[in-house]
């Protein structure tokens, strides 16, 4: 049996988008953390938004239509 990855990260076009997403999740009380974009995911030098994998669906639902993200990757 393969163990589920503990985190999912949302990658956004810019830090402005990340911070808007952060504000939305903060208002919703969804636990999250901003982290530098892991090098193996992207060469972009910015930050991304990390949530526990079980929060991934809730986070996506909260952000949908309010801020666009480019990719969601399991860590």
């Amino acid at each position: 049996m393969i163990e589920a990855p503990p985190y999912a990260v949302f990658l956004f076009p810019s830090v402005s988008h990340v911070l808007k997403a952060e504000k939305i999740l903060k208002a919703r009380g969804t636990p999250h953390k901003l982290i530098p974009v892991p090098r193996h995911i992207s060469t972009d030098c910015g930050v991304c938004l990390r949530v526990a994998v079980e929060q991934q669906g809730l986070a996506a639902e909260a952000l949908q239509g309010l801020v666009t993200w480019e990719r969601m990757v399991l860590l």
Partner: protein
Amino acid sequence: MEPDPGKNQLIYFDNAATSWPKPAGMMGAMGYYNEMIGGSPGRSGHRRSLDAGRIILETREVLAELFGIDDSLRIAFTKNATEALNIALLGILHSGDHVITSSMEHNSVMRPLRFLETQGVQISVVSCSGDGRLSPEDVHAAIRPQTRLLVVTHASNVTGTIQPIAELGHIVRDHGFLFCVDAAQTAGALPIHVDEMAIDLLAFSGHKSLFGPQGTGGLYIREGIERHLRPLMMGGTGSRSEFEVQPDFMPDKYESGTPNTIGLAGLGAGVRFVLTEGVEAIRSKEEGLTERFLKGLASLKGIAVYGPPDAASRTAAVSFNIAGVSPSEAALELDERFGILCRPGLHCAPAAHRTIGTFSQGTIRFGFGYFNKDEEISFALEAIRSLAAGD
């Protein structure tokens, strides 16, 4: 008590150029950024860089709330309304396009348009009435198949004349071209709602009625327009660093280089002040001051007043002349003898002065603000009476 210039008790009537004083929170917000944060937004992932980014996001969010904008990322920050207008005009218009504007525009619109004219853009300058009003029917009559844009000031910086923005916006929307509004004089002073007014591009100044510091302004760009709007500058944005081409999304496409974070911290505080006080309350106060001044001027001899006669049709900028005294002489006397600070001349709007018949000597402009008081208006009226009487 009357102001006494000898005791440095000045009366600031130049709010149409830049507002003063600013709300106490503005300097507090700038000081907080400077002392406690200091990072470069969007350039790193450390906490102070992120805090700097959060300050800028908050300023976008309160501006979006003020202007009825759904997504705050549709606002790109600039150093002033002029830069915002240049992005809009130079970015959207190409050779062969036709653009309509009014005869009351500031040079921040007229100069880019005259440059574009040399590049093959056709321009129609619709004449306004003697008090500066633009007729929607006349705009309608100027529309051609090649019309790409209508660019109009929300209110004249010379006469304060308020244009019928919502009516103009819906004419433009019905004909399928774009509507750009210069809100330098009105952002924070009059209600603005980009959807209700059908505004596609809204250029605003941060340091006038939004009570931010100088060096701040911005441009709202309706969704989808950025696909056809060239940026004025390109460079580092902190995003998509692996690519050597400019990002194509908002707001990064128009925000190259390190932003004026300390200024935008101050602008955020200014806009929060506007939201707390309420645009309606601000408008009511400024309209009351303007009405009091207009009534007072009407009772004086030898005074010519320009713009609509009623305060409801104008902002708090009032242009007038004193018979036998040039605007520059009057402004000097007002400053040195009475401590009243105002702006004489053409106000960077020669077309507007031609429209109201005051080119080339110009006018004396009093720009009232939210912090002015009734007694300052009374004192100024007495000073004007004195100058008109040759005292």
